[in-house]
């Protein structure tokens, strides 16, 4: 039982990281690409692409931006 004690401070801090409020942002790129009302239309066209196609490709950027932001904001600081 006592052997686990030295680990306690590290545990507390890393658990706080996993429960960061920034993680809630991850719901945006999960929910938004699954709402057809946003993208299921032809106009406006962009470079000849109907909205259905270009907007869904733009959601990729939304996903990348969100995961990158969350990663940067929840990165462990100082200990490596």
């Amino acid at each position, binding site marked *: 039982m006592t052997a686990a004690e030295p680990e306690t401070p590290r545990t507390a801090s890393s658990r706080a990281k996993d429960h960061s409020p920034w993680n809630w942002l991850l719901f945006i790129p999960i929910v938004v*690409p699954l709402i*057809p009302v946003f993208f299921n239309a032809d106009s406006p066209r962009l470079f000849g692409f*109907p909205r259905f196609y270009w907007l869904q490709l733009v*959601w*990729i950027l939304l996903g990348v931006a969100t995961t990158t932001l969350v990663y940067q904001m929840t990165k462990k600081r100082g200990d490596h």
Partner: protein
Amino acid sequence: MWRDHLTEIIVFSALFLLVSGMGFVAARWRAPKDMAHLDEWGLGGRSFGGWITWFLVGGDLYTAYTFVAVPALMFGAGAAGFFAVPYTIVIYPLVFLVLCRLWSVSHRHGFVTPADFVRRRFDSPVLALLIAITGIVATMPYIALQLVGIEAVLKTMGVTGDSAVARHLPIIIAFAILAAYTYQSGLRAPALIAFVKDTLIYIVILVAVIYLPYKLGGWGSIFDAADAKFAASPNPNDGILLNANNQLQYVTLAFGSALALFLYPHSITGVLASRNRDVIKRNMSALPAYSLLLGLIALLGFMAIAAGVKPLPGAKEGTVDSNTVVPVLFDQQFPDWFAGVAYAAIGIGALVPAAIMSIAAANLFTRNIYKEYLKRDASPAQEANVSKITSLVVKVGAVACIVFLDPQFSIDLQLIGGVIILQTLPAVALGLYTRWFHRGALIAGWVAGMGLGMWMLYQIPNPASKRAHFGGSAFPLSEFGFDTKKTIYVGIVAVLVNLVVAALVTLALRAAKVAEGVDGTTPDDYFADEGDPRVTPGPDRDADSAREPVA
């Protein structure tokens, strides 16, 4: 005839031989002290950094079959085929935190497969066996499908024969080479080959999306050509946009496929091979580059419509093999040598996932069947050996599926595979967060979800191919008594029922005070990182990794 395609065949063969050579050399790449350990052969020493993981997991998830089948679906059905894009967008934020927990607990306990985790977490060999069998059954047809990708290319190059064996000889040779270097080099082989494969694919697709629209009169006219084709077809559910009846199917298929993808054993193998949590998180931001690629590849289906591509005839009289749409497009539009490069990209693209999948299936057999039921005290060297041999057996099985059975059978099985692998979600993915579910209830939920999923798939006809059963994954809600023409993805319904049953049976078993077993993991295990002490030590890894510079 094949003589017309000589340049293509030469370029294809040269690139194919190059990567085969790399596969054998890979055993010496980042060589371990002791290859006779499952961590080394099956997980590349759990040491891959950001770049290798990016190529490996990218090459693993975005398979040759995807590159052939998604544009084929776009060619045939239009917008519905584009589900692959939202599917591969929502996956990464969805698993961003989940995979880190899985990596940590596996690192600490030396888990190689998802079933290893379930075994320790829920203290239930039966549940672990179910997870392992589900994984193997879902993976096998996926390997066979990679052969369908190669076959589409060979067919377009005119490499065919009269008898079944002659027709499949190139594939048998290709898979024999693949089996030999996977046996020797383990996960290091696909990791190294993935660099070549993905580089080729990126080049081919960048050229295709710039050059082909230029030749075909611009993107606008490509979409207009597709629109005209679907407007003329009698099928009410095709078109360049979704209609009121297939939107629910589109969204649930994208979401359900995303939930399923990282439950597949081969995805988990790729993730567990990475060095630390940081590598995984950074890859969740970097892997969507492949989604962009996939979106552009999907549009090749529309380019094929604009270019007036006619797919080659299928195995049976009067049918067409829609998987040849993209190879035929390349053959018509590109110079021969570049078409050869494109074909090599698809062919090599089949080898990487096929190798990883066979390794993942072999690891499941070794850890969760052989070690659990046949030889409890197997040494790490024996485990590695059994896994190597099993990977050979798995590949022979995949080739046999393609040579002796209708390829349609593999395609059906893969459709089923997505639905059944989803039934491991409560035990594996939710199990990483909570042990609230009772082990007996998880088994009951698995049985319920599996049974319902199979029944629903059996009910779905396919009017296009005139099949009465297993015709697709879009289940008409009217079968449940709703007054609507809407359809929904089978997997989502099955996994929801699975969860409800698991929850209800948990309450019942807990009320009846049925023993729950002992959780072998601690909350702290789910946050462990590189350098933290391991409960089950690996093969001299700690000395090894200490040598690497700390960047």
